[in-house]
């Protein structure tokens, strides 16, 4: 199948998720689409598969302009998609899941299971799959569930199969099987779109590779006219410039100390965490989202429990205490998800700004709030951080994304806490606000605060941090001084050019699962 996407754009609110992306998918090819999380890969595929119909631009299948209104239109045109999160009904059998939505009719809508079984046995034989059609999906392993998803597309005679991050959940042996199957599909004349952020897999298996970043298509080249280095440069983006400089300061005493911290519910099995952040220092943790950064941050701020180990803030052991005690000990937190964790969207700016200070004498007289003081405080913050808002009594939800983030940062930094945890502080924020946020964080550093910066944006890490660590599969690398490491080295650590040690590690973790 020849699929053409022409000038596709998608807006989510004020965020431009896809920006005039044009892409050609040729038959008999494995076409890899790579990019960071949030680069727009999945959004582009949901447009091609008819799940997202709020786009501008055109889709051509075999030179015919198509206009999907539901996924069934795309399915009829021969497109199949294996979603990252499997779309299966766990209480149904393999057979029932495969035929759901394309049921073979016997009479009056009753199902012809024999027909479906015969067709599936043929497919199983052709592609050398082995699976028990009568087993309940809830009992299957992750790899088998993926096979069910692939069989769903084959049963519908898909000529173009989209696989969204198919290897993220597989064991090495299952990965090898998957890529063998993909080669078989390719040889049978199907087109394959492989969405991934693992460059190794792309280099080894793809015929063509397209790179996406921030909603734009950066490049689309045959695999033999590009290189691993070029792809990883294009993924992380090499040419953002910022007029922000980090002055040389000698770091002070240790403010945040993690020793042998074993966090509950990490996404992968890694080692315990050891980390120090000193005064006048920014320590960056780089990594692709989903490698355990969010869980580590939750453990530090007190949203998540730890199995063992210590968290110390300014020398006080806070491992067992609740969030407000931790904040009193000198901790503040700039969350990644400002809608959910950072702000009460239906409350006023002044309420949001003062929320962690309501118990203080300055803002409360007995049980009553000092409204004027709160208002003045909020107006000062708004002025100082240049938050664009109509008034201090406007609702938080009325602010734009960048201004919401500025308000949170203004609130947290105004606490003058010794330890600042900043989690993707500039995610989804426009360039002007990014510069300002970076400036504020650096001036906090100069004023003796200790900052832990968790970010999937390498530029941000390299601009701000004194030291960098990389988080991969719930494990922190040793720390590098920022001057002594290159973007490429970090990029490869983040995207994991699989070294022997890591391979072994992964095997162990899968056995444990």
């Amino acid at each position, binding site marked *: 199948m020849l699929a053409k996407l022409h000038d596709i754009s998608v807006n989510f609110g004020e965020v431009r998720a896809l920006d005039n992306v044009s892409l050609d998918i040729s038959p008999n090819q494995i076409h890899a689409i790579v990019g960071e999380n949030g680069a727009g890969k999945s959004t582009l595929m949901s447009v091609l*598969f008819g*799940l997202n119909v709020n786009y501008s631009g055109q889709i051509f299948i075999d030179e015919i302009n198509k206009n999907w209104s*539901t*996924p*069934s*239109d795309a*399915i*009829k045109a021969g497109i199949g*998609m294996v*979603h990252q999160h499997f*779309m*299966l*009904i*766990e*209480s*149904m059998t393999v057979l*029932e899941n495969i*035929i*759901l*939505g*394309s*049921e073979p*009719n016997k009479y009056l*809508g*009753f*199902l012809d299971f024999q027909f479906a079984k015969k067709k599936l046995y043929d497919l199983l034989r052709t592609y050398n799959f082995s699976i028990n059609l009568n087993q309940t999906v809830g009992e299957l392993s992750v790899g088998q569930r993926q096979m069910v998803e692939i069989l*769903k597309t084959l049963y519908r005679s898909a000529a173009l199969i989209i696989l969204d991050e198919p290897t993220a959940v597989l064991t090495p042996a299952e990965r090898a099987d998957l890529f063998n199957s993909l080669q078989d599909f390719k040889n049978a004349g199907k087109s394959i779109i492989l969405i991934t952020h693992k460059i190794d897999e792309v280099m080894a298996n793809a015929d063509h590779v397209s790179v996406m970043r921030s909603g734009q298509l950066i490049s689309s080249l045959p695999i033999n006219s590009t290189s691993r280095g070029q792809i990883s440069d294009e993924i992380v983006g090499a040419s953002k410039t910022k007029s922000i400089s980090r002055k040389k300061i000698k770091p002070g005493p240790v403010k945040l100390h993690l020793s042998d911290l074993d*966090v*509950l*519910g990490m996404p992968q099995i890694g080692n315990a965490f050891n980390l120090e952040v000193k005064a006048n220092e920014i320590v960056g943790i780089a990594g692709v989202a989903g490698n355990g950064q969010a*869980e580590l941050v939750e453990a530090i701020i*007190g*949203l*998540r*429990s730890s199995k063992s180990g210590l968290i110390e803030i300014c020398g006080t052991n806070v491992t067992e205490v609740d*969030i407000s005690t931790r904040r009193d000990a000198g901790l503040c937190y700039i969350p990644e*998800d400002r809608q*959910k*964790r950072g702000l009460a969207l239906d409350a006023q700016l002044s309420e949001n700004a003062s929320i962690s200070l309501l118990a203080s004498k300055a803002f409360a007289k007995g049980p009553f709030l000092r409204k004027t003081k709160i208002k003045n405080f909020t107006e000062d913050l708004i002025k100082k951080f240049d938050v664009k808002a109509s008034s201090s009594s406007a609702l938080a939800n009325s602010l734009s994304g960048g201004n919401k983030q500025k308000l949170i940062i203004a609130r947290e930094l105004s606490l003058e806490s010794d330890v600042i945890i900043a989690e993707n502080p500039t995610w989804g924020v426009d360039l002007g606000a990014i510069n300002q946020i970076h400036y504020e964080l650096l001036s906090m550093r100069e004023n003796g605060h200790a900052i832990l910066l968790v970010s999937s944006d390498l530029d941000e890490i390299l601009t701000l941090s004194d030291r960098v660590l990389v988080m991969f599969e719930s494990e922190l690398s040793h720390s590098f001084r920022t001057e002594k490491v290159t973007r490429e080295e970090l990029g490869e650590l983040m995207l994991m050019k699989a070294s022997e040690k890591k391979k072994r590690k992964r095997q162990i973790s899968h056995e444990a699962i």
Partner: protein
Amino acid sequence: MLADLFDPAFADSVARIAVPILLASLGGAICHRAGVFNIALEGFILMGAFAAVLGTFMLGHVFWGVLSAILAGVFMGLLFAEFHLRRPGDAIVVSIALNLIGLGLTTYLLRAVLGVSGVFQDEALGKIIEINIPLIESLPVLGSFLSGQSILFYISIFLVFILHYIYSRHKLGFWMRAAGENPLALKTVGIKPAPVKLLALVLCGICCGLAGAQLSISNVSLFVENMSAGRGWIAVVIVLVTNGRPIPLLGLVLLFGFVDSLSLRLQGFGFPQQFTEMMPYIASLIALIFVSIRRIKDLVGMRGYDNG
């Protein structure tokens, strides 16, 4: 003593008590399996019961009564769909509203249309046809359970098995199960979940309408304000306990019918009424305890501030 307790009249009363609850539970089960949290069964039944009496009285035959009951149930189902599927109303809020509407509207119409308050009774009201099965009717005890019941008794038992069959063999059954368990999965294979849920609500309306008809023009021939008297809630409990699976549901309904009849019968033996009337509710409580034990979740790591 036991022979006095479990006589043919007792067997007959188990069936009569069970039928409305069975029909309402089937309706509830259809919604539950399709992912619609419908706890407005009480209001659905009440509307059905009133429409059955009104239709029979106005049009002169119980057939029209049954048809009116079905239409009233479907109307409630469509109301639910309008507020919960087409508009983003919360299912619990919509359910509470429809339960109140069911009670309020029937009480009002009783006065406005039939001109009485409290109870409406008329000689013109008949009863749904009852079927005697030769041979079976002469079986001891069981005969009066299986024979001589209203046609709705046989229809509802039939519905249990047809529903079971549809869930495993028919594409609508597949879609309804998928809509309840993983609507996004259904959407990605090209079936929109909302129409499937609408269908479930309409079928639920039909079942609950019939349940109401059984109450008002079969078990008795009259309408009393709030005559559903908690049966819709018992049905909700039964649906949740059995997870909407038709065959276990039938078993549990019969158990409730049995306990309820027993409580009536024990009154006759001089047990205090306050005690015997508690029995069906104690049985529901025990059933609920079993459900909650099954649903205790194991939260690992998170301290409960946030489940994202």
